């Protein structure tokens, strides 16, 4: 008997062989993988080891142009820019990861509940989401940061809050669609508990849609974090973040153009890598 239940309960999950077959080996995916992989590897390595100290200053090495010793050159304190970019990658990617984790889980929870049950709670959550969406996100982060103060944790908290609505919207609309699907109706008739339907029956089926928005969200988080640090309200120096380095570098655009270029291009590298990666996944194996 239980067995029949299982069968009847079975969700129309994508039929696929092993995970190897599901990797979309297209050129977007590959390029993205290589770029993201390199950035991640450098960022993680940077947490433990960098070619030079990221904080030690040297007056004699101020503004050395790129060379074999310092491939990105040195900054206004004589610090190796490449080492600092490695540290900055770690900071930026780490923060963005936490932001996505935080806002993604909150988004799933809120989106699932409101999409599945609807009602007054749904109405309220949607109004708030609309209001937050109407707010330009930069404005909202500015306001939240004014409340909390700057610094690493507060960046994570404020971006986390700002990003929740976008996930809520997507998750909610998926749940809205699936709650009336035949297999869900059947499960309900069979007396499956709501919690189980929410997270066991529906959740796995929205992952393909959700995954893409996570990737986009990750990219936006990187842009937002560096933007905040650029405006001076994010990660504080001397801790390296790609954004605050770029903000420093802007002051030396003429004396040391390599500073702004190498930092700015590093941001572009990461963002491009991720967007290619997610594009590759979105296109799947068809190309």
């Amino acid at each position: 008997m239980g067995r029949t239940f299982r069968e009847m309960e079975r969700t129309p999950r994508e039929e696929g062989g092993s995970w190897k077959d599901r990797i979309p080996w297209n050129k977007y995916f590959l390029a993205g993988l290589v770029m993201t992989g390199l950035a991640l590897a450098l960022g993680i390595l940077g947490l433990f080891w960098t070619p030079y100290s990221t904080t030690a200053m040297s007056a004699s090495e101020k503004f050395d142009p790129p060379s074999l010793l310092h491939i990105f050159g040195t900054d206004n304190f004589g610090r190796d820019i490449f080492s600092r970019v490695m540290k900055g990658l770690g900071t930026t990617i780490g923060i963005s990861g936490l932001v996505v984790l935080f806002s993604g889980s909150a988004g799933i929870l809120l989106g699932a509940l409101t999409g599945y049950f609807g009602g007054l709670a749904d109405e309220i959550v949607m109004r708030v989401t609309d209001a937050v969406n109407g707010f330009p996100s930069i404005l909202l982060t500015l306001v939240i940061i004014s409340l909390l103060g700057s610094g690493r944790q507060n960046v994570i908290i404020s971006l986390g809050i700002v990003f929740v609505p976008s996930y809520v919207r997507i998750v909610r609309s998926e749940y809205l669609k699936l709650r009336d699907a035949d297999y869900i109706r059947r499960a309900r008739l069979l007396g499956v508990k709501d919690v189980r339907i929410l997270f066991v029956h529906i959740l796995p089926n929205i992952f393909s849609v959700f995954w893409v928005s996570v990737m986009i969200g990750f990219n936006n988080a990187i842009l937002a974090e560096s933007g905040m640090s650029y405006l001076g309200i994010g990660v504080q120096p001397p801790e390296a973040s790609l954004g605050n380095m770029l903000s420093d570098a802007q002051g030396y655009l003429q004396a040391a153009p390599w500073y702004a270029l190498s930092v700015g291009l590093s941001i572009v590298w990461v963002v491009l890598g991720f967007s290619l990666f997610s594009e590759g996944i979105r296109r799947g194996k068809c190309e």
Partner: protein
Amino acid sequence: MKYLGKKTITLIMTLFLVSVAAFLAFQIIPGDVVMSILGTEATPEREEQLREELGLGDPPAVRYLNWMTGVLKGDLGVSYRYSKNMNEMMPVAELIGDKLPVTLWLAAVSLALIVLVSIPLGVLWVRSGSRVLDAALGVITQATMAVPSFFLGILVTFVFGIILKFFAPGGYISYQEDFSGFLGYLLFPALSIALPKIAMTARFLRNSMLTEVGTDYVRTAYSKGCTKRRVMYVHVLRNAMMPVVTFLGMIVAEIVAGSIVIEQVFSLPGIGRLLISAISTRDFPVVQILILYITFVVIFVYFLVDILYRVIDPRISGK
């Protein structure tokens, strides 16, 4: 019509929520208005006097009501921070009225750039049929979309301002003094805003056109003996443009928000820069009005897009 009414109520509800939120947020934000205005050198008596002048002694609910009734009557209040003359503070309406044209023109120039470049680009992309061009445009647009606007601003400054000397960075020309000079200067910040959006719109148009190319009516048109050119421009483009117009609507909302950062990078005296400095100096009358205003613009544009979408595509209104 019923739908329209419901949407309008939602719009008003949202604005009300935002106004309350904006007002409340600034009640709890740390930082004393009076200190912020007077700095460290004023006498304690002067601080007390100013606190009274600003009506900061009243409870928040009273202040919200006073403020809101004023706004509804068209009185936007006066700035805490900026003087109009020796004894009066600058009315918020006047302050924003002076800055708004800069931001609006910036948005207009950006939008013009986006439309003028992205649509021909999208058409060219689909029409050429060259695989090399297709791949190249694919890579270029993807890369452009990955450049954060503030870095793009720095790059534009560096390339066009410092190396090529096409414009004097920071040498903003007031629109009241020399309008063509003003537009000329705006071109560069507008370029920084427009580039990624051009890439986005061109890609969107391309995809939209490719979808149309595969539809029955296009095949019918071909079978009727229409030329490729005619099919492209009369049938495909016209139909593909519908979603692009609504897409552009969203871009407008994004431009309004995006100009906040670009105005900082290019030191343009628009409402974005006013907003940032008003937040940091706790000039709440200005901040609250600006938040309301920006939110209104964004939500209203979305609202229009929504309506437009229904008008264009009757299938949706069936729901």
